[in-house]
């Protein structure tokens, strides 16, 4: 009897494994199909790529709606994924998304992948060690509260005395840490590895507010009625770009050309509306 059960379990596991493989293969063909029918690709012969015909992309998958795994748990989806796939199509390349931890993600450029497309803010410090494509989205810092919270937040100074959840080592973290260390406001910073943990903490009532990229906040508000955005800091806008190794200027030029074409075709606007909602901006 026991043996029979074991065999059943074994075959179930094998079946599961087979279906998982099947799905992966499916997605690969999905992404390549449009590449073949597209018109003459942008010339990328001068650009350095890790492998022929493939654009390896470093991405911290777990930052919806920019990047997140679909229900099957293996297919990345999101705004960044759509943009980078379209860019690669323009360059006549296949996309290979490599899921990486945010810590040390930039150290892998030119080692594990060609570019990083993972909601990366263009900052002067980062531009010292890497180059960026032209920005493909604008972003602000936003304050999110529970939908039934009566508190009024008209500026970051109104956060005084609250416990704030945010994602570690992001612009939100840098900004809020600066507000705290300069003595502007007194807050408790609750730093998490993943932005999803911040929203779980808010929902469970562990923290009072979440400070996060406005784009991410838009995505959450769209998909859940539990949260609301109470403040967006329009004074310090940020721009997201695709990060590349500093010597890879040829790739930068090609990516910029692709982004420009996508902008003209209205693809970027369309994708933005799809992921963040047309009313968001």
């Amino acid at each position, binding site marked *: 009897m026991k043996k029979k059960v074991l065999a059943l379990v074994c075959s179930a596991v094998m079946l599961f494994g087979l279906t998982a493989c099947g799905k992966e293969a499916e997605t690969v063909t999905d992404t390549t199909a449009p590449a073949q029918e597209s018109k003459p690709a942008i010339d990328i012969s001068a650009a350095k790529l890790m492998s022929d015909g493939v654009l390896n992309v470093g991405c911290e998958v777990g930052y919806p709606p920019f990047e997140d795994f679909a229900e099957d748990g293996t297919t990345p989806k999101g705004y960044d994924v759509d943009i980078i796939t379209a860019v690669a199509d323009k360059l006549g390349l296949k996309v290979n998304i490599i899921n990486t931890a945010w*810590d*040390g993600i930039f150290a892998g450029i030119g080692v594990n992948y060609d570019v990083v497309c993972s909601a990366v803010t263009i900052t002067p410090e980062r531009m010292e060690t890497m180059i960026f494509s032209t920005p493909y989205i604008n972003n602000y810092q936003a304050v999110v509260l529970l939908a039934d919270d009566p508190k009024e937040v008209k500026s970051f*100074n109104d956060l005084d*005395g609250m*416990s704030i*959840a945010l994602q*570690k*080592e992001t612009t939100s973290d*840098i900004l809020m840490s*600066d*507000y705290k*260390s*300069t*003595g*502007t406001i*007194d807050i*408790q910073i*609750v*730093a*998490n*590895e993943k932005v999803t*943990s911040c929203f*779980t*903490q808010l*929902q*469970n*009532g*562990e*923290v009072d507010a979440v400070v996060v990229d406005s784009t991410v906040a838009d995505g959450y508000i769209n998909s859940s009625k539990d949260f609301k955005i109470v403040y967006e800091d329009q004074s310090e806008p940020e721009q997201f770009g695709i990060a590349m190794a500093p010597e890879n200027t040829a790739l930068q030029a090609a990516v910029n050309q692709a982004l420009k074409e996508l902008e003209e075709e209205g693809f970027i606007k369309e994708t933005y509306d799809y992921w963040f909602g047309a009313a968001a901006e």
Partner: protein
Amino acid sequence: MKKSEMKKHSGQIITAIVIIVICIILGLLKPGRETLLSMTSPEMQKMIDADASSTRKRVTVTYNSLFIINYASLSTSGANVMSERYVGFLGKVYQADEGVMKVVGQMVNYTYRMLGVGENLMHGAKLTITLTTLTVLFGVLLGTLLALGKISKKKILSKLSGAYIFFFRGTPLLIQIFVVYFTVPGIFGFAWRDLFNVNDAEAVYKGAFIAALIAFALNSGAYCAEIVRSAIQSIDKGQFEAAKALGMSYGQTMTRIIIPQSIRRMIPNVSNEFIMVLKDASLVFAISLMDITTVSKNIMTSEGSYLVFIPALVIYLVITAFFGFIFDKIEKKFSVYE
């Protein structure tokens, strides 16, 4: 034999006293906070004065005092980044913007941050030590109960203890932490920080700490149960029989004869478990707490300094050395029973 041992002992004590005296003298001779901050350049002073009336302040003033040496830095945020760093040692103030003094300043600052001085109890080395000590304490207590349950002749008790140990040893600690912190309150509709006063600003960290301690103690209990069980079962069966012959009950035999002897045998393994928990304590990063490893990793990613791991290693070694010494003493104390 005895004499030479005493000589060795007094030698150690004298060295310790000399080191402490030197440290106290160095500590008294280091310049004060005002002296360090009086070095501030006029431009920076102007920024500080402007901040006084501003609702969005720009200057961060850091002051770290570390026993014999101190460090101060002023830095601004925004497009024009300015920063000034000073190290105070032996009555003198050094510029620490580059060269050797910069490294010295960084070391003081990193060590200060990792020790969690001036921060709440749930931060840095203080968190690591508190969490580890309490975990092992509760773990051994829970483990003893579970071990007695497992070797008990009552079938249900034995099966229940066995199931508990199987569950907590068979699942990863990280997931247990997630479940205690996120899943349990999510299902039952409470928040860990509600255990504390609403006006307590640190309630969120304290709540997370309680959740972490529960997860760690439940997990450690399962491991300690096996340590205690093997120690008890290693005591010769003849002792049980002798105690029975003397008319002792099961409880008496356990508390008076078996457990006192088995303590000595379980100390080395408990010490091992202690060191394991000490390092596993870094898993609290998952629920927004920062132990030594998390702080050092944070400094690494935000400042890109690989030097930060050196003070981290030193702090860990000092902690393990201290507790190793204590476990040694306990083991010696209990060896009189054998």
